[in-house]
C-alpha cells in the first residue's frame, strides 16, 4: 500500500513522537517552572 521508502519515514516519524513522549514523561526539566515560580514569589522579609 505504501512505497517502502515512504513507509520507512512514517515509522521514523512515529518513533520520533514516541521518543519525545518519553522525554516529557521521564526527562522533563521541572526547573523551568520552579525558576519562574521562584522569580514571581517576593522574597521573605528577613527582619521578621
Amino acid at each position, binding site marked *: *500500500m505504501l*512505497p517502502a521508502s515512504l513507509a520507512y519515514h512514517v515509522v521514523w516519524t512515529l518513533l520520533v513522537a514516541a521518543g519525545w513522549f518519553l522525554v516529557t514523561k521521564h526527562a522533563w526539566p521541572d526547573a523551568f517552572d520552579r525558576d519562574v515560580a521562584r522569580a514571581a514569589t517576593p522574597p521573605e522579609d528577613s527582619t521578621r
Partner: protein
Amino acid sequence: MTVVVAISAYLVLLVAIGLLSTRYFRGSTADYFVASRSIGPFVLFMSIFGTTMTAFALVGSTAEAYEMGVGTFGKLASWSGLVHSACFFLIGLPLWSLGRRHGYMTQIEFFRARFESRSIGYVLFPVLVGLLVPYLLIGLMGAGSVLSGVTARAFPETFPSTNGAIPPALTAAVISAVVLCYIFTGGVRSAAWANTFQTLVFMGMGLLAFLLIAGEIGGLSAASWTSDPAKAIREGNMGELQFFTYRLIPLSVAMFPHLFQNFLTARSARAFKLLLFAHPICILLTWLPCILIGFWATGALVPGTGTPVVPDGANPNAVLGLMVGELTSPLVAGLVAAGVLAAIMSSLDSQFIAVGTMFTRDIVVHHFGHDYFSDAALVWLARGFVVLVVIVAYLLTLAEPREIFALGIWCFSGYASLFPLVFAALYWRRVTKAGAFASVLVTGAVWFGLFAASDYGADRKFLLGGMMPVTAMFAACAITLVVVSLLTRPPAEETLGRFFPDKMA
C-alpha cells in the same frame, strides 16, 4: 458557486471565533502581545503547529511529490518532526523561561539584553523583518492562486480578464481583511484561538480529500500500483547531498519571530509537553495524505475517460486542485480550498502580529522609553502598526511578480542560518557582542551573495556543490560567531548571572 459558498461560510465562522476570543481581552500590552502568558497546552500546540504549517504543507507538498516523488516526505516532513520538537525543547522552552522572568516580548529584547547592546537590535530588526515580509507575501499570493484555481470559469461575466476566476488581488484583500478583523481587537490571543480552529480544518480537509480520492481511484493499494514507480524512490529524483543538507532548513523555527512570540504565550513550561510529541504526529497526518495524492497523480486517470487527471506540462502547484476537482465533488473542492486558506491564514495572523509587535516594542518603545506611552496607548499603537503592515503587505502582492514563491526557501534558509546565534546565546557563556554582530553581518552577506548567484531566486534548482545554499550560510554564521567571540572580551559577569544563574558560584 458551491466552492465560494463553502469558503465564505468558513471565513465567517473564523471571524466569529476570532471575535469571540476578544471577550477575554484584558486591554493591556501583555495581553495583546503575549496573551498574558496564559495559553494552555492544547491551544499552544494547535497554534504553534498551525503557524509552522503554510500553504506549502498542502499544495506545495503535493506538487513536490508529483515532481520529485515520495522522497519529498523524507526531505521535508520526517526530519522536521524531530528538529522542530528539538527546537521547541532546546530553544523555545528556555526562551519562554527567560521571557517570563525578564518580561521579554520580542526576540530583539532578548538579544539586546543577552549581548549588552542596543545596537544589535537595529542590525537584527531589518534582517528579521526583511526575511518575514516575503514569507507574508507567499501566504497572500498562495491564497490568491488557490482560489483562482478552484473558481476558474465560475464567474465569466464578473471576472472576464481572469477566465472567470476570482482575481488573486481580490482574494488577497479579503484574506487580509479577515485576518485583520480578529487580530486587530484581540491580538495574539485571537490568533491562537483562530489558529486552533484553522489547524483542525486544514488537517481534516487534507484527510477528507485523501480518503475520497483513494476511494475514487480504486482504494489505497490500486492507487499506488497505478502510479509512476520511478517516483516511489528517492534515487534519481534528488541527490544525496541535497537531501541531507535540506535537513538544516527546519532549524528556521528557532529564529522565526512569530514563533518566538508564540512560545511566550505559554502558561507554564509543562504546556510545551503536548507540543513536543504531538507535533511529529500531526506533521505525519498533514503531510502523508498530500504526498500520496501527489504520488498517485503521476498515474491517476479521470474515471470513465482514460485521460490523465494531471495533463502533461501542468503547473505542479495545480496538482492538488486538479485531483480534488476531477475526483471529488464541488463541495469537497470548496472544503479543501478552505483548508488550504486555513493553513495560509494560520501563519499570516501570527506573522502580522509579530511584525506589529516588533515595530512597537523594538523601535518605538525602545526609542522613547517605557514610560513615554501609557499601556492603552501602546495597544493602539500596535494595532496601528498591524494595520499598516497588512496594508503594505497587500500592496506588495500587487507589485511583486509571481516568482515570489521561489523566495520561500530563501526566507527559511536565512532564518535557519541564524540558528547558531540563538543557540549560542542560550548555551555558550563565552559568546560576545562582537561575535553576534559579526555573525549577523557575515551571514547576511553570504545570504545575499548566494541569492544573487541564484539570479535572485529565479534559479529554483540552485545548489552549491550539490548542497543546499543554507549549508554555506549556516557554516558562515557558526564559524564567525565562534572565532570572533573567542577573539573578543567576554560578557560582563552581571549579564552572565542573569542568563546562567545556576552556573554562577
